[in-house]
């Protein structure tokens, strides 16, 4: 038997006390590890959000407000190419919006004109057959046009109106395609009895249905999505772009990149971003990150205090035994080593329990923290993004009937709320190492005063108490 064995055995002298200490200390370590995992998960999420959500800059022709008014000249490919070369711009997606009426398609809109549609048709604000046909408005038989969006980034489609793009059947075409293919909104497909493989006519050409999608949004489900090059060719608008979205590598670079784009495009384009809104949302995560860090420190300190008080109590209780050990030849180092081993044994047992609890509890704790802390801000964000999306419709050329349009900006913002709460505290091997290191640290710090007390115990005291 040696110092280590005796120290380990001493840890089990009183099973009830050992059990209680281990459970309390284990909960403390579990809290520390859970908070550490939450801290890591939230940190990763912040980095991820900064690099993927809200890091877009919308570019539209200056003064252009879609089919709802405004004017200006479309953006050109040269302008977009110059934007692509600006620092921190990781990609630029482009789109061209247009409308199809009975004069250039056999499709019938799935949207009922209603009072709003007829009002916009009557005041000639750029809606429906009125402006396109150049004839007096036939309000009684007015049918909203079918919006077609040409895009070079069909894999990043989503509805700015709050809906989420879901491909229901078929497949998404290639962004660089020049083929006469289209993705058809589900209500538009139903209205016109279209399925994957069906054809319809637009701009005098036969278009094949490549896929059917849904968004849960009435306007979104009544649109057509086609390759950008195809729409530019068929609508005789070669090289024209009515909306572009530049993606920035991190939200941290959003402001400077926006300025750079504005400087590059000058007065020919309106350049906007949603930095403030996204940063407000991220700030809630930053708060959780800070809280979790303080909790880690607090839990580790609490653990050290628990083991400190425990060891102090044990040393006081065994003062005579320490005196006896010293009297029969034990050095301070051996006695301290024995008590340190006892402290390490207790904390390692607690660490094992703590790690097991943390494995089970870390994810729910993280989610609860994130859900509680972001519920207010995400609610606000979603509302704001909804409003932003509405504005985006006008900017990007959506019809007066309202609703969303298919642009990358809408996609990003629409997903911020759900993205923030979609956090997983991943438990890896490193957490076991952290747990054991925490236990070791707690044991050393917590038993240091006890060790000092041991060193101060004089062997003669055992004789005096006889």
């Amino acid at each position, binding site marked *: 038997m040696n110092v280590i064995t*005796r120290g380990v055995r001493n840890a089990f002298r009183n099973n009830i006390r050992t059990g209680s200490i281990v459970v309390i200390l284990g909960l403390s370590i579990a809290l520390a590890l859970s908070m550490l995992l939450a801290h890591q998960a939230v940190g990763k999420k912040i980095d991820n959000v900064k690099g993927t959500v809200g890091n877009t800059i919308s570019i539209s022709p200056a003064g252009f407000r879609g089919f709802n008014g405004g004017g200006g000249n479309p953006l050109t490919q040269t302008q977009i190419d110059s934007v692509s070369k600006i620092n921190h711009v990781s990609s630029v997606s482009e789109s061209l919006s247009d409308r199809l009426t009975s004069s250039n398609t056999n499709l019938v809109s799935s949207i009922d004109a209603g009072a709003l549609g007829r009002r916009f048709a009557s005041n000639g604000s750029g809606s429906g057959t009125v402006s396109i046909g150049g004839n007096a408005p036939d309000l009684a038989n007015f049918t909203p046009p079918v919006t077609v969006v040409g895009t070079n980034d069909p894999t990043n489609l989503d509805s700015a109106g709050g809906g989420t793009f879901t491909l229901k059947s078929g497949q998404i075409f290639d962004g660089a395609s020049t083929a006469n293919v289209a993705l058809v909104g589900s209500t538009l497909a139903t209205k016109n009895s279209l399925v994957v493989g069906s054809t319809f006519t637009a701009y005098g050409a036969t278009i094949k249905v490549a896929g059917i999608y849904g968004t849960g949004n009435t306007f979104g489900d009544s649109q057509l999505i086609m390759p950008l090059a195809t729409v530019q060719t068929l609508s005789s608008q070669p090289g024209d772009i009515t909306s572009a979205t530049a993606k920035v590598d991190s939200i941290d670079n959003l402001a400077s990149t926006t300025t750079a784009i504005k400087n590059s495009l000058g007065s020919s384009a309106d350049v906007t971003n949603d930095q403030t809104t996204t940063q407000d949302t991220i700030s809630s995560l930053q708060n959780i990150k800070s809280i979790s860090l303080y909790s880690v420190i607090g839990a580790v300190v609490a653990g050290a205090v628990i083991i400190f008080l425990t060891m102090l109590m044990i040393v006081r209780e065994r003062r*005579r035994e320490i005196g006896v050990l010293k009297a*029969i030849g034990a050095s301070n180092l051996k006695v301290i080593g024995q008590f340190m081993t006892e402290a390490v044994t207790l904390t390692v047992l607690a660490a094992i329990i703590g790690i097991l609890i943390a494995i089970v509890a870390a994810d729910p704790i993280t989610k609860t923290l994130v859900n509680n802390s972001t519920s207010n801000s995400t609610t606000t964000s979603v509302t704001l993004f909804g409003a932003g999306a509405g504005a985006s419709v006008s900017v990007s050329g959506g019809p007066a009937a309202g609703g969303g349009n298919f642009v990358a900006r809408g996609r990003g913002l629409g997903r911020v709320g759900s993205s923030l709460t979609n956090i997983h505290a991943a438990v890896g091997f490193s957490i076991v190492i952290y747990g054991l290191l925490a236990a070791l640290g707690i044991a050393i710090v917590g038993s240091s005063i006890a060790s000092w007390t041991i060193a101060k115990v004089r062997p003669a005291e055992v004789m005096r108490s006889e």
Partner: protein
Amino acid sequence: MLKVEKLTKSFSSGGNTVTAVDNISLEVDDGKFVSIIGRSGSGKSTLLSLLGTLDKPSSGTIELGGQDVTKLRDHALIKYRASSIGFVFQSYNLVPNLSAIENVMLPMEFAGMAKSERRPRAEQLLEQVGLDETKQQRRPGRLSGGEQQRVAIARALANKPKLILADEPTGNLDSQNGKMIFDLLHQLSKKENTTIIVVTHDSTIAGKTEKTYELLDGKLKGKSK
């Protein structure tokens, strides 16, 4: 030989100086069985602490085998205690969660004895004090007072010390067990040629030792035999 010269130990207590051991000198030959008697508070236990190097004297010297132990530094004192002194306490002071044999092996470990030698030596000592194999594996809580004191004596003998200091070794035992422990100590002092100093207030026991010193208010009043 144990040679004590002008040994004094003073404490500060409440602003006053208390002299627990006052200018004591004595000599004890090797293998002698000696008793120190005195009333409670007479300084018996303080003297025993000084002789066992558990405490440092205010002045004076203690020589054991020609070595002045009062000049030893703390680290050397630990080694000295482990190899040269054995203690037997009134309340046994065995480590409760170790078995009898593990308690006896403890000072051997502290003295640096090889692991392979410890167990046979402990078994031999426990047999010598009359503890059978079954009881050797028991923890102190499952042994009687007399048996625990026998384990304590075996522990004191573990490193073949020159001096065994026993503080009221029969104080917690009935007369029969007390006599048995006394006889055992007496027998060991002869067999192992170990000097044994027993502190007691039992004059019957003191009367059976080879030499008896009496302490009064920290001073050696006299010796008999």
